[in-house]
């Protein structure tokens, strides 16, 4: 038996035993977990543990030293492992920077493959949607409905409509992501306004498809990879040299793919594209007081996928941008960098946990005088908005992209 053949033979027996060998990337993640010294620092910081207690969610240390060490199948962890929001707080405070969020994805992928019955139903629903539409949400079937919803939103936010540029016209791809494409269309439109205002040539995909983050988070590796390579194919066809996004999840997930598969295409959040490539001088001149809007006190929320999965620098840049806008005062919330509970697809099956996590943010926001919360992610925006509203608060939430677009002077 040749080496190849022997390998095939062994892997086929593993299959029967329902054991899935680690890929090279996965081995790296496993190696990261092996570095855990069982110190417990992460336990004092995990927002889910803080919100629901270790009895319900045994937390990152337990993931590192117990749950992730129960292969081959990780079935026994099914009730716990889906409660991690993937916020990365544990990884950031850990002395060894153990990559808990990624080991969680890896474990979920084993469970999905061998024991799909243990995967929360809500995740199966999202999975079906993605498989059918290549989007995380069922798209509005009627194009006219979608246009109507867009126009209503534009009117509500006082934004003009900008023509969508043709494909293959520029090296910069603006990638809105599922939320801005299907739900928060104002974010997509606002980004177009901003890019147009600064005369940035850009293009958009005619057939937007999901970046693959939800698939990755539920453990559907195959779909995540399929979506990534589909995006890559489009990037190649259009000869894209740079991707600009407005969603924190897309920024980190496409960034990860670009890194893992050596795409050599930088993935930037609009915030950093503006501060780094447009430049603060130009920006400062472009801001005006929005018509009919008073001085406004805002507070910010830092999306986990930006600060902990990409870089804390991104929120520093967001604050720099806000600082350039006249009549905007930023008040800092003590829970600005605390996970909003919207991550890890937790809200799709355990809404109570997601709500318990966001409480921390809401309480800190309520202590401030801020009238609005601003955050550079449409997903965080939606999560905070829903929960603030449900808690009876009058504080409103804006996606930073929309907030900026509303305060730009006209071109020329």
């Amino acid at each position: 038996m040749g080496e190849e053949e022997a390998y095939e033979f062994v892997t086929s027996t593993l299959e029967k035993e329902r054991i899935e060998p680690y890929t090279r990337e996965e081995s790296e993640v496993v190696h990261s977990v092996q570095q855990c010294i069982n110190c417990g620092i992460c336990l004092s910081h995990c927002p889910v543990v803080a919100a629901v207690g270790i009895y319900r969610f045994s937390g990152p240390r337990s993931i590192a030293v117990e749950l992730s060490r129960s292969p081959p199948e990780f079935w026994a962890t099914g009730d716990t492992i889906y409660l991690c929001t993937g916020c990365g707080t544990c990884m950031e405070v850990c002395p060894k920077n153990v990559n808990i969020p990624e080991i969680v994805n890896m474990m979920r992928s084993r469970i999905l493959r061998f024991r799909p019955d243990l995967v929360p139903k809500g995740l199966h629903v999202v999975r079906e949607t993605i498989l059918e539409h290549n989007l995380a949400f069922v798209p509005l079937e009627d194009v006219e409905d979608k246009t109507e919803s867009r126009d209503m939103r534009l009117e509500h936010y006082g934004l003009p409509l900008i023509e969508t540029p043709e494909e293959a016209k520029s090296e910069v791809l603006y990638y809105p992501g599922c939320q801005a494409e299907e739900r928060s269309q104002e974010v997509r439109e606002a980004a177009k306004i901003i890019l147009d205002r600064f005369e940035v040539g850009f293009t958009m995909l005619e057939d937007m498809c999901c970046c693959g983050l939800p698939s990755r988070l539920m453990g559907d590796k195959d779909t995540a990879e399929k979506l990534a390579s589909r995006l890559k194919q489009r990037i190649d066809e259009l000869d894209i040299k740079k991707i600009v996004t407005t969603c924190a999840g897309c920024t980190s997930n496409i960034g990860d793919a670009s890194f893992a598969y050596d795409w050599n295409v930088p993935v930037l959040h609009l915030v950093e594209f503006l501060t780094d490539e447009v430049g603060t001088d130009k920006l400062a001149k472009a801001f005006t007081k929005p018509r009919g809007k008073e001085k406004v006190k805002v507070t910010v929320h830092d999306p986990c996928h930006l600060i902990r999965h990409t870089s804390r620098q991104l929120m520093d840049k967001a604050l720099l941008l806000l600082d350039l806008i006249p009549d905007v005062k930023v008040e800092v919330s003590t829970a600005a960098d605390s996970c909003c509970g919207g991550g890890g697809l937790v809200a799709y099956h355990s809404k109570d946990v997601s709500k318990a996590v966001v409480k921390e943010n809401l309480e800190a926001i309520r202590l401030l005088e801020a009238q609005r919360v601003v955050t550079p992610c449409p997903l965080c925006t939606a999560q905070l908005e829903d929960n603030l509203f449900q808690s009876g608060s009058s504080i409103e939430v804006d996606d930073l992209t929309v907030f900026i677009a509303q305060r730009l002077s006209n071109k020329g």
Partner: protein
Amino acid sequence: MNLEADIVIVGGGMAGLVAGTIASEGGLSSIVLRKGESATSMSSGAIDVVGYLPDGTIPFESPKEGLVALASLYPFHPYSILGFGEGKPAFAEKVITGVEAAVGWLKDKLKDSVAKIVGGLDSNILSLSILGTTKPTCLIQETMVSDGFANEFDSTLLFLGVKGYPDFFASAAAKSFLEQSEIEQEGPRKVAHSTVRISPFGNTCNISASEIARHLDHDDALGELLPQIKKTVDTLGATHVALPPILGIKNARGNRQRIEEEVGAIVFELLAFPPSIPGLRLQRALEETYRKSGGQLLLGHEALSAYKEKNRYVSVQAGAPRRSIRISTKAVVSATGKFIGGGLRGAEDGLTETVFNLMTVTGNLIQADNIRPYDYTSPFAVDTGGHSIFSCGLTVDPQFRPVMPDGQPDADNLFAAGSTLAGYDYLVEKSGLGVALVSGFYAGKNAADAAKEVD
């Protein structure tokens, strides 16, 4: 986008945050890069200055006494370095004044924080632990002050546990405490133990310290606890109540005061195993102090390398998960910790410093680039002589600049502080946070001076 700061500090534990705050106070801009939390956050939160001689078993009466002994017996101990003047050997007086200045400064900085500390160099405090044993330490958090139950004639000490909190067994602690007091022929007249119920999420098994502490940060939770403590104290006639350190992450001081008022006894927290809440409080308080001083704390950033021009570092390269930045600077402090912090790495092929590729040495100042760390451990996990691997690290000149094999500093403007330094074993000496504080304090000052030279 690249950044600029007069001083870049690598490491966000006690040493780094102190150095950063000192830099701000000197009117300089600074950035602290922190890749994770580490030993400072894991510690018991009590700041040891010096408890024992490296091979001693009887604790020093006072840190002052210890510093004098170190200065004469261990001239290259990080404390002794303060005594060097113009090439002359250590003067104990100078060491004591130097340490006193740093301790006084920290006490002032933390006085309004969650980790307010008390104590000083004139006596070591024998602090009670959750095992019922004592440990000599210099500065303890206010919530840990036990006000002399040992000497009062008519005192009753109550060890009070929490049902379902597995780190502390009040009965076992009481027992070992009694055994110890019998040997030493002192202590309170009576010792008692009991438990209370605190159920953060409605369950009373397997609860963790941080859950209880966070729970008690809320008013109503404390309200539930008060009558339970009062009842136990009244029944047993306790004058002193020893609790595990769970009185709160934010409100521990206020909570303690409220309990004392309500039950009419002295209430204090015990020292605990890592990771303990007081350690977390100390880490937070230091971070807050640094931020308030105007410094920029950059979390989630790891220093990867640094660039030198002639004899000075001019920039530090730092990476976050998906971005990297270059920070131009005039001086650098390396406060990267030891094996847990990540400043030192021990492997089969030797001991290396991870950011600047500096020379490492053993406790005896022999170059350690090629040692087998294994040879520097004792076969006994608990060995009064310690594991000599813990005294390995960087060796520095009297200005806290790391020295290279040629005996010269690696750069004119690179300083090192904290547990990355060689020549002391914090585990044996009980000197960990003290050395980090003092070396951070002076490395920060010296870095500030070096940065000012550039203008």
